Structure formats: structure tokens, C-alpha cells
């Protein structure tokens, strides 16, 4: 057992109890389904309720507060800044993404998980580099700050949704509205928009194949700017998960447009 100075430890030769759990009905000791639906009452393909608010940060050029079930993320876009430390003329602008988990956002209250934060910010940047018209501001960069207030699964997908909306709120030219959805492939089934419980299931043992797929798409152009896949899964399952995610993304675009139109209407009035 790992030695924890602040607690009373058992004998040194003791083992974690999870190794002895029976894996038949439950998936690694956790209920995947109850009464044919997922633990929180959803269908396999059902997405959680989500909503967003624009212009929540007055000092930012554009901002978006987005909630997806219990996942809460805030994204803010700031004014153009000269790209520091370049010597050659760059024909395209750049996006600088700073992604942070709040210390209280996850189950384990860690203040710093630099590697994962860097990975997330790279993914968000890749997604947005194909959405934003970078040729409109050569030699300049746009700062995007993303902070996760609560992590209950599908963080990358929600962050990309929020960032895309923050750019639109900032009146920065974009090729289209980018939407993103996450899916977990566990036990041969596809679960759209997993909660953090469902996401974490794949991390425990190597016995069954499980995986996590986050895919963003610009539905109006039928383009996929970003994919993030982690785990093991059958190719056929990955393909059908991709199709389901693309459909979900398309329906979300309509919902986003409806809320965006409120913003335009308010401003005109």
C-alpha cells in the first residue's frame, strides 16, 4: 500500500480491495446500467441537458459560460496581441490557448496537472485553428483562456463548444460553428456524453477494451478539425461512434444558433 503520512496505514503487505471484486454483472464494480438505462436515467445515445451564456466576462472581448450536465466551463477570448518573439512575417494569425482546471473542479483536489492541461489546450487550439479565419490578423495572436469549474465528464467537448461560442461572441470571423461531443465505448456499447464516472471506468484495468472518443466538427462545411481518442476499441465500434457523434454535433448547431439569435436580437433592440 502506498505510504500516506497523514493517515494510519495498514500493514505493509496489504493490497487494494478492488483487485478482488467480481467482474460479472457490474463493470469493474460499478453499475453501468440500472433498469436498462444509464445510471443517471439516460438512454445510451442521449446527451445531457446543456446551456450556455454569452458575454459573461465584461473585460473580455468575448466569453461563454457553458454547462453540460454538471460540467461547468468558462471560456474567455481577449483582444488581439502581437505574437511575441517572431522574426519572420507570419501570414496567418495564431491562437494561444490557456486551459486550467480549477483546484476544486475534480474529485481529487489537485491544484496542478500540467501535462493534462497542456494536452487539453493543444486539442482546443487544433480544433479552433481550423474554425477561425486566421488570415484576417497576420502577425497577431488571440488569447483564449479556458477554466473548468467542475469536471463531470466530456470536458474537452464542452470546452471546444464554449471556445467556439466565445469566438463568435467576440465577433471574430469564423468559417462555421464548431460543435463537439464525447463518447465512451465500454463493454461493446457506445455511450454518448459520458459523465466522469463513466469516463473513468476505462482507466482501471486492461481486461476489457474501453475507450474515449471526442470529436469536433464544423457541420456547415462537413469538416472534422479535431479528434481525440484514448483507449482500446474495435474499429467497427469506433466508426459507429463517429457517426453518432457527427449526428449529435449537427443537432447541436441548430440549438446554438437559436440561442445566438437571442444575442443578436437583444443587441439590435
Amino acid at each position, binding site marked *: 500500500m502506498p505510504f500516506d503520512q497523514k493517515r494510519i496505514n495498514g500493514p505493509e503487505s496489504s493490497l487494494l480491495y478492488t483487485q478482488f471484486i467480481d467482474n460479472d454483472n457490474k463493470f469493474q464494480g460499478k453499475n453501468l446500467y440500472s433498469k436498462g438505462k444509464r445510471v443517471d436515467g439516460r438512454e445510451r445515445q442521449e446527451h445531457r441537458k446543456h446551456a450556455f451564456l454569452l458575454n459573461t466576462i465584461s473585460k473580455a472581448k468575448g466569453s461563454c459560460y457553458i454547462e453540460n450536465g454538471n460540467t461547468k466551463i468558462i471560456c474567455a477570448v481577449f483582444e488581439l496581441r502581437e505574437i511575441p518573439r517572431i522574426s*519572420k512575417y507570419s501570414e496567418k494569425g495564431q491562437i494561444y490557448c490557456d486551459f486550467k482546471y480549477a483546484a476544486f473542479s475534480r474529485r481529487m483536489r489537485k491544484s496542478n496537472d500540467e501535462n493534462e492541461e497542456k494536452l487539453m489546450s493543444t486539442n482546443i487550439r487544433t480544433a479552433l485553428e481550423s474554425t477561425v479565419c486566421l488570415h484576417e490578423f497576420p502577425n497577431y495572436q488571440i488569447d483564449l483562456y479556458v477554466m473548468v469549474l467542475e469536471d463531470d465528464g466530456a470536458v474537452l467537448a464542452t470546452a471546444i463548444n464554449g471556445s467556439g461560442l466565445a469566438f463568435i461572441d467576440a465577433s471574430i470571423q469564423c468559417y462555421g460553428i464548431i460543435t463537439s461531443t464525447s463518447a465512451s465505448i465500454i463493454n461493446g456499447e457506445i455511450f454518448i456524453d459520458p459523465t466522469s464516472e463513466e469516463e473513468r471506468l476505462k482507466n482501471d484495468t486492461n481486461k476489457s477494451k474501453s475507450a474515449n472518443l471526442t470529436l469536433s466538427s464544423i457541420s456547415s462545411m462537413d469538416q472534422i478539425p479535431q479528434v481525440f481518442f484514448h483507449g482500446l476499441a474495435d474499429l467497427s465500434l469506433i466508426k459507429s461512434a463517429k457517426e453518432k457523434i457527427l449526428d449529435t454535433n449537427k443537432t447541436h448547431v441548430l440549438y446554438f444558433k437559436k440561442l445566438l439569435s437571442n444575442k443578436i436580437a437583444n*443587441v439590435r433592440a
Partner: protein
Amino acid sequence: MDNKTDPIVCFPGDRLCTSNENTIPGNGTYERLGYIYSSLAGIVETKTEDKNTIISVVTSGNKTNLPIVGDVVTARVEIVNQRFAKCSVICIGDMLLNRPLRGILRKEDVRATDIDRVEMYKNYRPNDIILAKIIPQIEIHTYSLSTAENELGVVIASARGLATSSNTYIPVPMVPISWSEMQCPNTLVKEPRKVAKIMSENALAKQQ
């Protein structure tokens, strides 16, 4: 044009119309595979000139604007040197910028004639507000400016002004007395500047 019909609201990625020789994608739009798409969330505006229609999308404020070559900008002179004057661009046309941009006005670009014998200090002083035109960039983050026209040059310059009781000076705007001199109204001191020929808006409108 579309005053009587409802305004068309559009979002990034919305297809606006087909593109042919007579349609021009304006601000806030882009052209792709034979169609014109919107790239902003706002209201569509069409303007017809001769046979061409310019389609653009207008949002409310918050616009990101960078000057292009040929724009007339308002700048404040920060540092004056023998070779150049460093300025900070505060407006593009009549639109105020959120953050000032860096500009540089070189000795050769101050006026159109006799450019070898220009003395920077006799044309501009720190804290002058000038109108200048953007010329092609030489350095990366600095816009090159030129005042080589009659309508460009110093618009507002301040003289040191009257002393107040607490040992400070209230700056007083100077009055132009010729195309190369300005005078303080209180002390009657003349200072050399390259003065801009500001045309009144009525005169400009009549010209057009």
C-alpha cells in the same frame, strides 16, 4: 435597401448566396466553392454599386480591425528622433481602437518634396496628434506611416501653456498660422510643425 423587409440574421457558416462576377464578398463573409458564406453572427447588408452587389455581415461593435495599406489613421507622436518619429495609432478612420497599435513615421515619408532636408523636430513634437496614411510595412509589428500629402500632418498640438499656482502647466492647444507653423494663443510663441489641411465635412461631401 432592405429597410422594409425583415433583416436577415446569419451565423458563421451560413450560406448567403451564390457567387458570380457581380457579387462581391464584403466584410464578414468568405467565398468558397461557388457560394458566399457568412463568417460572423449578425445581420446581412447588401450594397449595390453599378452592376456589383457587395454583401457583408454587420455585427454590433466589438469589431477586430487592423489597418490596411491606404487607410488614414489618427496617431499620437510618442518619440521624435532625427530619423523617424514613433507613434501610437489610436483610430482607424473614425473608429476608435481598443488598444493602440505601433506606428513609425520615417524622415523620408514626412512630405512629398525635398525629402533629404527634412528635420523631424521641426515637423513633429511628442504628444502631437497627427493624421497619417498607412504605407506597406517594413517591420513586423509596426505600421509604417506617411504624411506626404496636404491633408495629412499635425491636427492638434499643445504648447506648454499657463502656469498655475501649484507649479504645473495647463497645456493649451496651438493655432495653425501657416502650413509649417503653429502659435500658442497665450504666449504667442511660434513652433514649427507640418500642419494638416483639414477640410470641413461639407466641403468633402460636395467634392464627392
